[in-house]
């Protein structure tokens, strides 16, 4: 096999599929970063809550809980995710203004509860959750592109695009950026910090549900699936600097591609160790993320 064949048959497809999953990591990472940026809390419950809602979609559409249509199930699950985000933030909001570390530990508690509730409702078994995704495939320059790939890409582009428009061009977006950089200035201007935090939590929950639902077709759904997926999102957020929205997009795609290459060329068994290595390296070489701004802000 020649060098070009290797590229064509292994490397390009690996990079392509890595980029597709990377988009989903980015969705997860964006949620983590939104919350961290404005309230300095790392939301460790992100994966478990998203997992719970993915299970809700399954439960509501498969007859385990109800037999709704797929679309209705997703809407109900999204509403649940928003309600859970409200609830979590309502409980920890007094802590947020006191210690970011304490509130971060508190989110671990919510993660544990979400996991337990998932177990209680749905058990520890693996279930299959089918999404109504167009099933077709075609080949471009030898690269196999599926309906799933295009769906993920389209959803990711639309969601992330919408999010960036809100943050860049709306009044709410200005408030979000102001609170992220200088909460004192925002308070002096008469902003309600809590309602902006809540906006971030709710947006993150919705992004989490979308990411979780879209990752499921590549695997089965179990208690740990989504939490594991969110760990990659975590790494993506870290690589992006944990405080940069475009950074987490780049980080997500980078993680998707690197993990794909690593499992194929090196070893699938050491993927978590590889993640550890990436996180350590990223934090130490680019403590502010790969998209570190040159020049920096004032002072």
């Amino acid at each position: 096999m020649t060098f070009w064949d290797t590229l064509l048959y292994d490397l390009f497809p690996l990079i392509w599929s890595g980029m597709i999953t990377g988009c989903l990591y980015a969705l997860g990472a964006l949620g983590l970063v939104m919350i961290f940026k404005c309230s300095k809390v790392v939301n460790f419950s992100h994966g478990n809550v998203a997992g719970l809602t993915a299970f809700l979609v399954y439960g509501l559409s498969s007859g385990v809980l109800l037999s709704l249509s797929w679309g209705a199930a997703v809407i109900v699950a999204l509403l649940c995710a928003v309600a859970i985000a409200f609830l979590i933030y309502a409980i920890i909001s007094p802590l947020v203004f006191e210690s970011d570390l304490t509130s971060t530990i508190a989110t671990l508690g919510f993660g544990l509860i979400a996991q337990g509730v998932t177990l209680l409702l749905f058990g520890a078994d693996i279930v299959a959750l089918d999404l109504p995704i167009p099933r077709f495939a075609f080949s471009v320059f030898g690269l196999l592109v599926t309906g799933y790939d295009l769906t993920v890409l389209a959803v990711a582009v639309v969601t992330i695009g919408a999010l960036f428009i809100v943050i860049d061009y709306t009044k709410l977006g200005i408030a979000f950026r102001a609170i992220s950089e200088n909460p004192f200035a925002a308070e002096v201007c008469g902003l309600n910090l809590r309602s902006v935090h809540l906006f971030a939590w709710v947006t993150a929950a919705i992004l989490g549900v979308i990411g979780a639902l879209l990752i499921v077709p590549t695997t089965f759904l179990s208690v740990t699936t989504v939490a594991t997926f969110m760990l990659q999102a975590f790494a993506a957020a870290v690589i992006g600097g944990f405080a940069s929205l475009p950074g987490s997009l780049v980080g997500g795609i980078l993680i998707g591609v690197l993990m794909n290459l690593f499992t194929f060329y090196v070893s699938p068994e050491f993927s978590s160790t590889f993640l550890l290595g990436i996180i350590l390296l990223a934090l130490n070489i680019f403590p502010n993320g790969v998209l570190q701004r040159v020049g920096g802000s004032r002072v």
Partner: protein
Amino acid sequence: MSNLLEVRNLTVSYGTGAPAVDSISFSVAEGAVVALLGANGAGKSSTMKAICGVIPASGEVDFAGSPITGDPARRRVAKGIVYVPEGREIVGDLTVRENLVLGGYQKSAAERRQRMDMVLDLFPEIAEKANRSAWRLSGGEQQMLAIGRGLVADPKLLLLDEPSLGLAPLLVRRVFDRLAVIRKESNLAIVLVEQNLAVTMRLCDELHFLRGGRIVGHRSAEALRDKTARQEAIDAFLGAAAA
């Protein structure tokens, strides 16, 4: 004429030590400029922050005839008390225009636009750079932006904390000239914390001297024209011990 702001026994404590502000009482008439003078740690900034509601305090604060004690900062901003903090505290990553939007966050879109146009007219220096990130402005421009951001909220009372800090004399004069214009046009009341006594005296009607969290002296504007009062002010800064 009734008082716009009435502060009674305002006390601010951080931790267990002596209070930073120790039951201060004073009032500000409508359209008046009241200055607070004192060394670092005398409690000036804490007084300002307590009045605008960003730090907890005990005592009573009345504004426009009704009590606002216990109101959060955002409600006080809505009522017309706006704080322009020390060190400018603009949001560097936002553009100049976006910072102004932040200042008028609680206003309707139309009213905000009108106030913003007014502010940009008043400060042509920053109007030129309206779409630039705020951190790229010079110190003086940042101070103008901070004051402008406060003005977008259409305040009745502006709390100005050390607007001359770190500015060259020429810029200080320019900033204070603008303040004088605003004051004349809009009957805006101002509480001013300053180190630059000369410019302060050009603007203010009343002066309170603070030391150790208490008001230790008070002078009206007429009294300040007097030479001995000026010497008192000088002593307050450079110390009387060596005299």
